[in-house]
C-alpha cells in the first residue's frame, strides 16, 4: 500500500472543489450544518430545490481532503436530480464514489457530506 490513497483526483478536488459557495437567501430552500468534532471537519450545505428537483447545491466549510473531496463529488452527483433519487443514496455509494479505500478512522470524514445532505433534505 502506498500513496494510492491520495490519488490525484482526491487532491485536486480538495484543492479545487466543485460547488463551493453559497446560494442566495432569496433562492435557498434548504440548508444544514454538519461537523465532526473529533477532527474539525465542518460543512454547511445549501440547496435550491424546485418542484422536488435539486436545481442547485453549494457548500461552504473546511476539512480534510477526504471530507472536501467527498462533498464535491456528492454535490456533483445530486445536482439536477430528483429528491427521491437523493433519498436513496447510502453510505456505501458515497464510499464507492471516492474510489479509494477508506479506513475505519476516516469513515466519518468520508460520510460527513452525506450526513449534511440528509440533514438538509430529510
Amino acid at each position: 500500500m502506498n500513496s494510492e490513497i491520495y490519488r490525484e483526483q482526491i487532491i485536486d478536488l480538495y484543492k479545487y472543489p466543485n460547488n463551493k459557495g453559497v446560494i442566495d437567501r432569496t433562492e435557498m430552500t434548504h440548508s444544514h450544518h454538519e461537523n465532526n468534532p473529533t477532527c474539525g471537519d465542518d460543512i454547511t450545505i445549501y440547496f435550491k430545490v424546485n418542484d422536488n428537483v435539486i436545481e442547485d447545491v453549494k457548500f461552504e466549510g473546511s476539512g480534510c481532503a477526504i471530507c472536501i473531496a467527498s462533498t464535491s463529488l456528492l454535490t456533483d452527483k445530486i445536482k439536477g436530480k430528483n429528491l427521491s433519487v437523493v433519498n436513496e443514496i447510502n453510505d456505501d455509494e458515497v464510499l464507492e464514489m471516492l474510489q479509494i479505500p477508506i479506513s475505519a478512522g476516516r469513515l466519518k470524514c468520508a460520510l460527513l457530506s452525506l450526513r449534511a445532505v440528509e440533514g438538509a433534505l430529510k
Partner: protein
Amino acid sequence: MEQKLNISEEFNIEEIREKFPIFNNNPNLIYLDSAATSQKPETVINAQSDFLKNFNSNVHRGIYKLSIKSTELFEKSRNNIAKFINAKSQEIVFTKNTTESINIIANSILDIVDNNKTEIVITEMEHHSNLIPWQQLAKKNNMKLIVIPITNDYKLDYDEAKNLINDKTAIVTLCHVSNSLGTINNIAEIISYAKEFDALTVIDGAQAVSHFKVDVKELDCDFYVFSGHKMYGPDGVGILYGKEEFLNKMNPTTYGGGMINTVSFDETTFADLPEKFEAGTQNISGIVALNNAIEFIEEIGFDKIKDHESELLRYTIDNLKSLELIEIYNPGVDNSIGVISFNLDGIHAHDISTIVDEDNIALRAGHHCCIPLMKKLKLAATCRISLGIYNTKEEIDKLIESLNKAKEIFK
C-alpha cells in the same frame, strides 16, 4: 515470580527497545503516540500474566495462602508507588485511570472547601478530563470556573494566574505537562499562589510521571493524579494521591465492598484510607504489574530518561523546523517534554496522519481532548508527536521523510 530486567549501566537505546515485545513483533512500527498510551516492557506484561497464572485471588479477603500472597503483591505495589512520588502508602488510592481519579476528587472535594470560596481555577491547556469534572462541579454548585490563559509562546500566563487566584478561589487545578503542547508548567509557582489564599491544588500528572521525578511533598500539592498505562504500566490502573488530612475528611461517593468498617441496613461506617476510596475489586493483576513499570523506570533512572528524551525532543523540533510551511505548537525544548504538536500548511492533520501511517508511523491527529485549547489557537486539529523512552532519532528522520512526502502529494 521475579521479573529480571537486566538494564546496562550505560544508556543503550537498542537494549531498551529489545525490552518491548511490540517492537520485536512489529519491526517497522514507529510509535509516536506515547502520550495516548505507552508501550509495555516484557517484564510488565509477564508480571501481569504470571500473577494470573500463579497467585490470582482477591485481595484483603481470604485467609488462605494465595490471598495473603496476592494481598502482599498488591500492597507492595502501593508502597512502591507511594515511594515513587514520595507519598505515604495510605495516601495512594487506586482508580482505573487519571480521569477517574479527577472525578473522584471532584465528587468529594467540596467536603473540605469553605462555603465562601466560590471559584475553581483551571487553565486553557487542560485535557477534557481535567476540565469537564470541574466545569460540571461549578455548574452544580453555583461556582465560577476561571480559566488561566496561555501566552503566545504556549506557556502558562503566570501574571494572569496571580491575578485570577484570590480569596474566592476554592481549587486551583492544572496539568503538570500539557498533553497537546508538551509545556511543563511551573507547578510550584502556581501552588504558591494558591497557598496564599488557602486554595486546594489538584495536579494532573498524567504526562509527567514517565518523564521526570515527581515529589509530591516537595511540590506540596494537595492532590496529584496519573495513569499506569502512560508510564509503561498496564491499562486500567490510575493513581490518586491526596494529602492524608484531606482524604480523611472527604466522603467517598462510590460505595460497596471493601470500603467499609461496619454495615447494617440503617448505617454504614467507612474504612480508613486508602480503602475508603477503593470500593469493589480493583484491577489487581494490573496493579501488581504496575510495580514492574516503576522498576523499569527506576532501573534506567530519570537522569538517563531526561537526557535521552530532551535530546530527542531537541532533535525533533530542529528537524520539524527545517520543513517549510510548518507551524509548531510547543514552547521550546527548555520548557517542554515529550510532546510536540504541529501542522503543515494547507494539509489537514488527518490527511498527514493517514499518509505517514502508510510508512508505519503512528502519529496522532485531532484535538487531543483539548477542544477549548484548539479553539483558542484557532485550529481545527493538529498532528501530535509524543515520545517515549524507546523512540530514536532514526525514527524522527523517517517521520520527516514521510512528512516531506505528504507535502509533495499536496503541492
